[in-house]
């Protein structure tokens, strides 16, 4: 027997492989990013043949896994909830066409949100696409549900979504397992154009088939012990029952164990769609009122149609945004209990502490670019050359260019470019030449930059695009990019230089610079600016290339250049506000800025930015 203290994402990886998954694809995104690396780890340690890949985006990941699933294999693709938006087109169609093997779409939700642009609920996407969804309450259950999802998918020939919340993905729990192997059939694709290339007329038939599958699965979900179940005692009536799924279920369970409450029954819905109608009806019949606790939106609540009986978000009892933290759940339940005249749970905690902490006015800790981060130098140079530009940006560490005034918009993956061309056209229409500087990371560019760039070139937009090329997907934990040419399992793949892709999009101005050299970068940006404005100019692409200091400690700063601040510093605050390196701080003891040696990366970049020349090599 083997043992490990696994991340929830590791438990999902383990479950997928134990369930015989032969193909796993993914695009990284918090909180899903660790699933694929954990799969790779198990593939190596258990000596499996499962194919793994970092795909260039979530749609690509889903399509690749889907092809395996219609070749009779068991496949999974993993992404974050907003990634599923990118893959939604594929998902909707795949639901109609079905599978011959299995396809599990792991889509990780981020209530809070902690690291996402929305709090959207993947279960609603499952409902929209008409595919079953499983909602684990902790890592242990996620492992079991990964296997269950594969089995369900294979049995009913339908894609199945596994929707772990961030508190499952980034929880850690101790696990043990026996050695296993991944068997499975060799690929067989049986041609059947009426299904695999169905025209609208056949789509109607496929839709009917899908609806029939859902009826069958709903019946199965009525009897899915351990996943969908209640703890009612026969012939008993209750003033209140709780319906909960996913992470909120585990919280309620612990709360009731801790406060020894056996008087309130729970209906657990770990498989909320297709909705287990019969089971829910049974539960509702036994309870006078039911309180629904689910994350993040209303799915179960919508299916429980009796608005007089059902309490939840629609009735205003449960907050409609933010995470259902244990404290929130305890308060919601106690409020309802009090409303109904039932004794509340005895929960510890002293309410006055919130007020006390609030009055301390603690500094908000904004995330910032790391000390030595090359993006900081890039944003500094951009602001210097184009102070009045609109700065469209994108998703990654560099969104934190916000703190340097270098990011005005961040819509979604790829919008750094598409919003730049949109702004250009909106202003150009009025005869206004609005300067625009777009920023985008290397991985984001491969994910969804090209279509937008092609469009911008084709339609004659003009702006500067700075590709922040740090040789990695930093924000999500340093996954390789196609430019690096290292594949998910660490083997060598073909490296595709950014320059070639940019040139292929029809861009004529492409230059590379090391942003650590701020002077060189500003000179190049001025040249780019002139090109954009010239009569036959267009889009200028500046590739700001320097490795991420976290991913490549040695390569990023091959020569340490420690710095110190002289008494010429008059504490003007320029380096804090405009350069914002966290290693530079106003030192009350000496009356001017100092370097925090414990976090300084010795990159030496700040020596180029102080207007008084007070930051010098040590």
């Amino acid at each position, binding site marked *: 027997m083997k043992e490990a203290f696994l991340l929830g994402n590791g438990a999902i990886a383990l479950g997928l492989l134990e369930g015989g998954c032969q193909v796993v694809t993914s695009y990284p995104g918090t909180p899903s990013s660790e699933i694929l690396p954990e799969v790779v780890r198990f593939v190596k340690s258990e000596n499996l043949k499962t194919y793994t890949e970092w795909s260039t985006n979530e749609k690509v990941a889903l399509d690749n896994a889907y092809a395996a699933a219609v070749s009779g294999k068991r496949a999974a693709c993993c992404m974050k909830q907003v990634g599923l938006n990118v893959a939604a087109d594929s998902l909707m169609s795949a639901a109609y066409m079905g599978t011959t093997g299995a396809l599990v779409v792991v889509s990780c939700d981020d209530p809070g949100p902690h690291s996402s642009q929305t709090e959207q609920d993947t279960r609603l996407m499952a409902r929209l696409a008409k595919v079953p969804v499983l909602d684990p309450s902790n890592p242990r259950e996620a492992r079991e549900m990964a296997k269950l999802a594969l089995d369900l998918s294979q049995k009913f020939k339908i894609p199945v979504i596994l929707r772990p919340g961030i508190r499952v993905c980034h929880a850690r729990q101790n696990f043990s397992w026996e050695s296993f192997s991944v068997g499975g059939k060799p690929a067989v694709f049986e041609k059947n154009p009426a299904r695999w290339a169905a025209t609208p007329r056949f789509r109607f038939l496929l839709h009917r088939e899908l609806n029939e599958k859902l009826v069958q699965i709903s019946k199965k979900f009525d009897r899915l012990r351990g996943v969908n179940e209640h703890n009612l005692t026969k012939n008993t009536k209750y003033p209140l029952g709780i319906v909960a799924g996913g992470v909120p279920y585990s919280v309620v369970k612990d709360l009731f164990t801790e406060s020894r409450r056996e008087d309130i029954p729970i209906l657990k819905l770990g498989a909320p769609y297709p909705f287990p109608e019969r089971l829910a009806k049974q539960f509702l019949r036994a309870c006078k009122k039911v309180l629904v606790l689910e994350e993040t939106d209303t799915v179960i609540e919508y299916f429980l149609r009796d608005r007089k009986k059902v309490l939840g978000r629609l009735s205003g009892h449960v907050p409609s945004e933010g995470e259902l933290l244990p404290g929130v759940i305890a308060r919601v339940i106690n409020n309802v209990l009090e409303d109904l005249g039932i004794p509340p749970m005895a929960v510890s905690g002293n309410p006055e502490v919130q007020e006390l902490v609030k009055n301390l006015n603690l500094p908000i800790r904004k995330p910032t*670019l790391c000390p030595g981060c090359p993006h900081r130098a890039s944003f500094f140079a951009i602001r210097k050359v184009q102070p009045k530009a609109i700065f469209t940006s994108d998703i990654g560490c560099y969104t934190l260019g916000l703190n340097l005034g270098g990011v005005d918009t961040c819509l979604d993956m790829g919008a750094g470019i598409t919003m730049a061309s949109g702004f250009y056209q909106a202003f150009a229409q009025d005869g206004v030449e609005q300067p625009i500087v777009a920023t985008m990371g290397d991985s984001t560019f491969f994910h969804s930059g090209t279509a937008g760039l092609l469009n911008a070139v084709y339609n004659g937009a003009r702006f500067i695009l700075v590709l922040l090329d740090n040789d990695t997907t930093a924000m999500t934990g340093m996954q390789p990019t196609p430019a690096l040419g290292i594949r998910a399992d660490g083997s060598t793949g073909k490296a595709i230089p950014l320059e070639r892709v940019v040139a292929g999009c029809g861009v004529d101005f492409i230059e590379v610079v090391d942003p650590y050299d701020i002077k060189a970068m500003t000179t190049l940006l001025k040249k780019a600016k002139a090109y954009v404005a010239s009569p036959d100019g267009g889009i200028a692409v500046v590739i700001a290339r320097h490795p991420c200091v976290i991913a490549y400690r040695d390569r990023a700063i091959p020569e340490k250049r420690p710095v110190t601040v002289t008494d010429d510093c008059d504490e003007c605050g320029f380096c804090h506000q405009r350069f914002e390196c966290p290693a530079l701080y106003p030192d009350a003891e000496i009356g001017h800025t100092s370097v925090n040696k414990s976090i300084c990366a010795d990159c030496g970049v700040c020596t180029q930015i102080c207007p008084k020349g007070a930051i010098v090599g040590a």
Partner: protein
Amino acid sequence: MKTINFVLSGLGGQGILFLTRVLAQCALDKGIPVLGAETHGMAQRGGSVVSHLRTGDVESSLVREGTAHFLLALEENEAYRNLAVLSEKGTLCVNASGNPFPKDSVRPYLEKMKIQSRALPVGKIALELNAPLAANSGLLGVFAALENTPFAKADIRATIARLSPKRFQDLNLKVFDACLEKTSAT
């Protein structure tokens, strides 16, 4: 099995995950099941980072307000920020920068809740020992010196040694020992 709740707080980059892993491993080595929650993503870039760790038979990973037995903070403000998690008679270990800890405005609350606090400038001690990244091991030293820790000092020390990357092992232990000794002495 009695549940013990830990909350560990600090800033991204301070090594909270290592701290969490050491405590979890100490419990696992005693055969106690562990469930915890970590912070990944955006906040790891210097934002407030919190880890939760629960030992015993539990289903959910987050420690509810008012139920943490131990709060270990790598920074004073992060200790204050997470004060609400501590239960009555809970214990607070903090890396204090040199300011008196706790603040006067907080002291009455700690007294009323019978929360015991241990503050030591572990960051400074680590820096003096030329190990700026080992403040987390230092805080474990403060924790190990408590009378009410659930794990033996030697076990915590051995676990740090086992989980440290080779090149940091000696430094981590040096800082741990120094902070353990300084806390025991006070």
